[in-house]
């Protein structure tokens, strides 16, 4: 049972990890993107559309489907959708210097509306009895696990039984961590988020860094939506099933102290806490809800502790949320 609990927690944690790593990259450029929930949602629907089109093109026959294309097409569609959202956000906040919070919330509302619109349309197209659309064939390709995982007992189940997007998430988190702390690009990006005027004076193209960080961050976050629908939900899309995972990912950024490697630990902990109510015996409906609060309680506790310790490295990027305008002094 503990093995199942851990394995389940990992599965739950992956969308959060994608979302928070994407948001960390964006925030490191000084942009607080509250559009992440909407971007993850549109990343998910992008993947669903891609998968739906490919499944139809193959005559809904598993035998006709090329495993490579079955993964690549939804993946690309997902990235296109989320980068599109990221571009809108960057255009508004970087070029037009609109308020980041308002823009972010608008993107979230827009992304969820977009997802529900396409989701609802697809459900109508297939004339399903249930308010959902099942892409189980594509999901099978996404969920393909290592053939020898089952032979290795608990070790296999915890570490090797996951879909490839789960491993990709961890790889991206580690890569982001490396880029941020060990490369010139990372140094430049951090300087843009901390003090854009200084970065500008040092000859760094502030606008380009902000755009790229936001769009790459959005692409990463969008993959979280894709992983959710294809692996966690077995390819079944129903409107609003994604829940508040996007907001949790944003909370996780604070928990992880803006460090992608910490986000791996944090997202696992969040996943475990979200899931704990199913594994603790004898909980009533009301106590279950209390249990679901735990991730947020932990985030608040971490916020309190880090603000009390006042260590500068643990603070958000200094110019987070502030527009940069060269001529303004």
């Amino acid at each position: 049972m503990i093995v199942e609990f851990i394995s389940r927690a990992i599965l739950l944690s992956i969308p959060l990890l994608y979302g928070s790593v994407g948001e960390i990259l964006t925030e490191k450029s000084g942009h607080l993107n509250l559009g992440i929930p909407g971007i993850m949602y549109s990343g998910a629907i992008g993947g669903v559309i891609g998968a739906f089109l490919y499944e139809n093109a193959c005559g809904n026959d598993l035998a006709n489907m090329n495993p490579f294309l079955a993964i690549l097409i939804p993946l690309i569609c997902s990235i296109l959708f989320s980068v599109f959202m990221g571009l809108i956000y960057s255009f508004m906040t970087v070029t037009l210097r609109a308020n980041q919070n308002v823009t972010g919330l608008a993107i979230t509302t827009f992304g969820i509306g977009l997802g529900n619109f396409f989701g609802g349309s697809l459900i109508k197209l297939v004339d399903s009895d249930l308010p959902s659309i099942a892409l189980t064939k594509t999901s099978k390709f996404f969920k393909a696990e290592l053939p020898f995982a089952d032979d290795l007992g608990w070790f296999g189940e915890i570490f090797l039984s996951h879909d490839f997007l789960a491993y990709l998430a961890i790889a991206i988190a580690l890569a982001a961590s490396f880029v941020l702390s060990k490369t010139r690009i990372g140094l430049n990006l951090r300087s843009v988020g901390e003090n854009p005027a200084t970065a500008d004076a040092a000859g760094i193209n502030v606008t380009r860094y902000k755009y790229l960080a936001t769009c790459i961050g959005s692409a990463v976050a969008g993959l979280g939506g894709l992983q959710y629908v294809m692996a966690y939900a077995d390819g079944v899309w129903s409107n609003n099933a994604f829940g508040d995972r996007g907001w949790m990912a944003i909370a996780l950024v604070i928990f992880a102290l803006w460090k992608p490697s910490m986000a791996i630990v944090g997202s696992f902990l969040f996943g475990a806490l979200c899931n704990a109510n199913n594994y603790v015996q004898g909980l009533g409906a009301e106590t279950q809800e209390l249990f679901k609060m735990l991730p947020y309680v932990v985030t608040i506790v971490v916020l309190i502790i880090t603000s009390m310790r006042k260590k500068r490295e643990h603070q958000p990027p200094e110019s987070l949320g502030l527009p940069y305008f060269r001529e303004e002094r």
Partner: protein
Amino acid sequence: MANQAAIELKNITKTFGSVVANKNVNLTANRGEILSILGENGSGKTTLMNMISGIYFPDEGEIFIDGQPAVIASPKDAFDYKIGMIHQHFKLVDVFSAAENIILGLKEKEGYNLKAAEARISAICEQYGFELDPKKKIYTMAVSEKQTVEIIKVLYRGADILILDEPTAVLTPQETQKLFAVLRKMRDDGKSIIIITHKLHEVLSLSDRVAVLRKGEYVGTVETAKTNESELTEMMVGKKISLNIERSEPKDPQVRLEVHHVDCTNREGSLVLDDVSFHVNAGEILGVAGIAGSGQRELLEVIAGLQKTDSGAVLYHNPKTGNVDLLQGKTPLQIRELGVRLSFVPEDRLGMGLVGNMDITDNMMLRSYRKGHSAFLERRAPKDLAEHIIDELEVVTPGITTPVRRLSGGNVQKVLVGREIAAAPTVLMAAYPVRGLDINSSYTIYNLLNQQKEKGVAVIFVGEDLDVLLELCDRILVIGGGKVTGIVDGRTATKEQVGLLMTKTEGGAEQ
């Protein structure tokens, strides 16, 4: 090496709108020498240097580097000509280490190698005698260390013409001596160093030659060894110009405000007011003269109850009750509740004085929002006041509902001064009230101050133009480095006398 021109400016002119910041400036800085650029506030020193470092582009004139004509259109061009400027306000990322800040934005061939960079930084430190730990984070550093980082940043990029904008303003005397030692070493190394300053003794002890600017114009260059303080002061402040500002004799001067031995430390922990004592009489204008940042702002804020003091007392003689009240340690609201009618025209008009996004009426209400008895706002009186001010002071505005930030600087100032005067103060403090104003608006403000004086108000006027101070004020308090370096009579004092007091940093008692 010496006497070979590194950089030469010919007939440089720069205007901002109708304001001439630099007019026909000629300047030469040689290799292996330290050139000081001396001038009062607003004399165009920084503008000139910004043109060399690529921040501004001159309207007219030519720049030669090593005898070749050069076009410096951006900071990057300046880098390419090996020109490095160390600004007064540091451009550093706080959570980065010194080394990270120094290599920021560089594209080195060997790629990103912090260790190699740290080694190079240590080598530079050793060469010139800096003390710096390249791994140290900026936010843990003292101001002098941050400055060191900025200088090394420029050296790391291979600069051999260094421009320092008032580098000693933030340093202690010991740190200043260290910096000078380093600069001398660089000079001996063949670098060309230009230092902007207004401290005469530094000019005399450090530089080889001095170029003097006055109100944007180039006065001349002299060799330091062949000059002295009074000659430089005369070059810097110039001959007295008559402005014909009316000045009436103070009537029945009684002490209104006393400041006793006030010490004040700012947020960075440096002493900004050091044992300041003076008094202001009712019915007189007390001018405050000094180089920018000598503690004028803090002085006014202490009186207004906005700044805490370390020690000392601010006493107010209440003409109504005859009591003497203690002001320091009280908030502005508590001061007002004592019945002290204090008006303050701060330096930062749209930051501290007015709310830019609100219209004139609403800005009037910032002072009167406590009046009225119901839960609803009483708008009639402030609206009348706003209209009155627009008429009386000839404020140019599209309408009474226009947000204040859309008005021009002079009109913003009129609104602010008008509001403060309408509060019928007994003490009126105005910091640089004519900054950025044209001649006519300036005279409107002078007349307003004079009217207040004649009404028996104690006026404190912080100004930067010595000619104005000498014609408008009854007495002039000169402040230098947070200390009162002298209090002179506005009718008898000379410009040179005030200029010398301003640049004096040590000693000086109340006369």
